[in-house]
């Protein structure tokens, strides 16, 4: 058991590898809670409900035109059909963990400061179950 650095994180969106352009990935997994408290209970009682997930990826804008730059990958997906989002928090390799989920792209932002690099941010909404697996 050991702590793991995030620098080897691999993120694939619709089959395109955004890792080399990205420097931050946030994952949020939640579950609904339903109040099932009844008379006689001394404390509130809850039961889990549906789960939900959302993701944020941030990184640097790239001016590439070969179809793999973040803007080329992400902008066409905005408001479109669900695509597969794969996250490998410890990198690519046999035995390493992988998370896969269908997502819809709900937001794409670019920031152009005068004194720094152009950055991007994309918001993903999970749709359906998260598949947790180990890479072959």
């Amino acid at each position, binding site marked *: 058991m050991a702590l793991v650095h995030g620098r080897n994180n691999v993120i694939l969106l619709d089959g395109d590898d955004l*890792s*080399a352009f*990205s*420097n931050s990935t946030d994952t949020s997994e939640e579950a609904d809670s339903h109040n099932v408290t009844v008379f006689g209970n001394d404390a509130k009682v809850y039961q889990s409900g549906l789960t939900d997930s959302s993701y944020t990826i941030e990184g*640097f804008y790239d001016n590439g035109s070969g179809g793999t730059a973040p803007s080329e990958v992400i902008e066409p997906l905005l408001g479109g059909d669900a695509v597969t989002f794969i996250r490998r928090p410890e990198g690519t390799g046999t035995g390493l963990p992988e998370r896969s989920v269908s997502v819809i792209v709900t937001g794409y932002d670019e920031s152009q400061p005068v004194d720094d*690099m152009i950055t991007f941010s994309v918001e993903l909404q999970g749709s359906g179950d998260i598949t947790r697996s180990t890479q072959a």
Partner: protein
Amino acid sequence: MRLADVMDELADILTAIPSLSGRSYGWPRVDVTPPAAVVDYPPAIDFDATYRRGQDRLTFSVVVIVGQASDRAARDNLSTYVDGSGAESVKQVLESVTDPQAFDSLRVVSADIDDEPIGDIEYLTATFEVDVVGPGNNT
């Protein structure tokens, strides 16, 4: 990014400045005849600006040795080097590169003006801070 390649390319770009043509060096050479430009080593390299060694970031000092500090002509020459634009503007010339080979992008952040002793003579210098971003995996 390969440090030596970046330093050489910065020096090559500066040769587009007429008064620095043939007088720009990609290492901190001390036996120079002003005006001259030398690219000094970055004090640090920031690795892992992105995942998977996609990007690194370095800050270089590009030092232009202008002339004797007591010389009025040195002041006039300095003015052209630190100007924000013009054929002799270090900022404009460095930032005008359109297809860099050893890095992806740069910005001339600032210029500090000082007197630096070279031998027994005080020389007027302009030290430009240059922010360089490029691939971390030499591809």
